[in-house]
C-alpha cells in the first residue's frame, strides 16, 4: 500500500526538481548571453573616468548618457553621424534592392520550368559556400578601376547579389503560391507579369520581409568588405568607424577618452537591429525555419 502511494509523489518530486534544474541551467546561460549587453548599456551612461573607477555591472556616480551622445556626434567634426548615414543608406539600398532581385529570381525558380533551371540553381547554391575572401581582391581592383572605391556603391552593388535570398524565396514561393491560382489567372487571360504583380507579390510579402530583414542585418553588421573598399574616413560605416576609434583609444595616452565614445557608439549601432528583431520576430523565425527544414 505504502509504495503505491509513495511512487507517484516521489515521481512528481523528482520531476519538480528536474524542471527546477532546467530553469537554473537556462537562466545561467540567459545571464551569459544578456549580461554583457547590459554591461554595455550601463557603461554608456558613465563618464570616461567613471568607466575606470566604478564597478562595471552597476551605474556610475553620474548619469552621463546624454552628454556621451552629444560628445559622440560632435567628435572629429561629426564623423559618427556621417557613419550612421552611410550605414543606413548602404544597408537599406542593398537590402531592398537584393530582396527585390531575389524575389523575382526565387519566383522564377519556384514556379517555372525552363532550360537550365537546375544547373543555374545549383550554381546559385554553390556560390553561397564560396568564402567571401575570394572576392576581396577582385572586388577591390574592380572598384578602384571603375572609380567606385570610396563611394557607397562599392559595397551596395555587390550587396545586390544575395544567393541565399534567392534560395529562401524559392522555397517560400513554392509553398506560398498554389499553382491552381496561377492557372486560374491564366485562364482568365491575365499575362504572367500581371499575375505576378496582382496576385503572387502579395502572397510573397512575408517571405520578402524575411529576406529583407536578414539582408539588412547582414549589411548593417558587415565589416570585412567595407574595410577593404571604403578606406576614406568620410565613407566609413559604423563597424569600420568604431573599430578605428577603438584602435585609437588603445594607443597610450591622449585618446583614452574615446573608450566611452566607442561604447556609446556601439549601443547606438546595436539598438536599431535589436528593435528590428523584437518587432519582426515572426519573420526571422520563419526565415530560420525555411533555411533549416529544406536545407
Amino acid at each position: 500500500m505504502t509504495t503505491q502511494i509513495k511512487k507517484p509523489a516521489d515521481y512528481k518530486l523528482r520531476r519538480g526538481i528536474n524542471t527546477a534544474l532546467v530553469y537554473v541551467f537556462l537562466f545561467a546561460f540567459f545571464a551569459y548571453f544578456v549580461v554583457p549587453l547590459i554591461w554595455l548599456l550601463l557603461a554608456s551612461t558613465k563618464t570616461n573616468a567613471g568607466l575606470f573607477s566604478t564597478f562595471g555591472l552597476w551605474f556610475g556616480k553620474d548619469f552621463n548618457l546624454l552628454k556621451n551622445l552629444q560628445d559622440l556626434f560632435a567628435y572629429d567634426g561629426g564623423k559618427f553621424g556621417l557613419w550612421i548615414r552611410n550605414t543606413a543608406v548602404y544597408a537599406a539600398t542593398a537590402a531592398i534592392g537584393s530582396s527585390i532581385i531575389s524575389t523575382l529570381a526565387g519566383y522564377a525558380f519556384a514556379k517555372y520550368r525552363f532550360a537550365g533551371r537546375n544547373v543555374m540553381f545549383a550554381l546559385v547554391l554553390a556560390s553561397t559556400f564560396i568564402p567571401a575572401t575570394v572576392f576581396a581582391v577582385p572586388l577591390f581592383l574592380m572598384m578602384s578601376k571603375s572609380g567606385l572605391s570610396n563611394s557607397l556603391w562599392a559595397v551596395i552593388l555587390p550587396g545586390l547579389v544575395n544567393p541565399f535570398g534567392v534560395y529562401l524565396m524559392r522555397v517560400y514561393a513554392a509553398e506560398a503560391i498554389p499553382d491552381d491560382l496561377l492557372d486560374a489567372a491564366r485562364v482568365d487571360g491575365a499575362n504572367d507579369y500581371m499575375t505576378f504583380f496582382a496576385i503572387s507579390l502579395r502572397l510573397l510579402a512575408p517571405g520578402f520581409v524575411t529576406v529583407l530583414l536578414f539582408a539588412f542585418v547582414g549589411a548593417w553588421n558587415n565589416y570585412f568588405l567595407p574595410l577593404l573598399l571604403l578606406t576614406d574616413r568620410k565613407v566609413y560605416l559604423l563597424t569600420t568607424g568604431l573599430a578605428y576609434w577603438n584602435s585609437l583609444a588603445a594607443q597610450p595616452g591622449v585618446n583614452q577618452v574615446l573608450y566611452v565614445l566607442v561604447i556609446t557608439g556601439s549601443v547606438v549601432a546595436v539598438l536599431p537591429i535589436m528593435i528590428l528583431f523584437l518587432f519582426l520576430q515572426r519573420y526571422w523565425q520563419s526565415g530560420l525555419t525555411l533555411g533549416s527544414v529544406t536545407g
Partner: protein
Amino acid sequence: MEFAEIPETGISSAYMPPAKRRLNWSILSRKMVPYIFLTPFLIGYLVFTVYPLVYAFGMSLYTKKIIGGTVFAGIANYIKVFKDGNFWEGIRNVLIFGSFQIPVMLGMALIFALILDSVNLRRPTIFRLGFFLPFAVPSVVAALMWGYWYGQAFGPIAQIFTALGLEPPIFLTGKTILPAMANISIWQFTGYNMLILFAALKAIPPELYEAATVDGANAWQMAWWIRIPLIRPAVILTIIFSVNGTLQLFNEPNVLTVVAPSIINLHYTPNIYLYNLAFRSTQFEYSAAMAFTLALVSSILASLVLFLSRRNQGESR
C-alpha cells in the same frame, strides 16, 4: 540537395485561345517569362560573382617581377602558398579555434533546442529571444565589448577578482587568446544555431514520438535515439556553415589585435594574412592564389564532414 517537385506551370498552352496560339511570338514570349524574372539577378551574378572569380583566378596565375612587370607564372603562386609556413600556421590557429568553438557552440545550441522543444517552459520566448540577441550585435561590436571584458583597465571580470582580493586572470596571452576569441563566437552564434535546430525539431511530425513514448523511453533516450537522428541534416548544415566561418576568422582577431598586438601578428589567421598581403604589400596575385587555396581547404573540410556523417549513418543502420 534535392529540389522540391514543382508541377509544370510555365507554358500551359492548352489554355490559350486558338487564335493566339498560332502566333509564334506569343509562345516565344511566354518561354521568355522566367528568364525575364531572372535577368536582374543573373546580371548581378555574372558581374559580382562569376566575373570576380574568373578575374581573381586569372590573376593568381601571374606574378609581379621587379623588372619586366607582371608575367605569367602558371601554378607557381599556388606552390608558394603550399610551402608558405605562415599560411599553414594561420590554418593551424583557426583549426585550434574551431576544434574548441564548433563543438561547444553546436553542443549548447542542440541542448537548448531540445529543451525548448521538449520541456514545457513558462514563457519560452524570453529564452529564445535572450539567446538569440547576441546575433543582432555586429561582430565588430561583440569583439570590442569582449575585448573590454577581458581587459584589466575596466573589465568587470578583473574588477570582481580585484574586489575579492585575487589576482585578475589575464585572458589575452598567446595560449588563452584562441579560447578567448572562441568565446566571442560562441556567445554570438549559439542562439542563431539553436533556432535553426529548434525549427528543424518543430518540423518533426508528432506521430514519430508516440511509438517511443508508448515504449516507455525517457526524455534523454527520446532525444538521443529519435529527435537528434531526425534533425541530422540540419545539424550537418550548421556544422558545415560553422567550419566555413571558422576558416574565414577575421573580424575578432582584427579588432583584438589592438589590445594584443604582440600575439596577433600579420599572419595570425589566413584571412588576416591575405588582407595584409593584398592591402599592405599589394601582392594581389599571391593573395588571390591564397584565397583560392583557402576555399579549397574549406571545401575539403566540408566534404570531410559530409563523408564522415554518411559513414556514421551507414554504421548505425
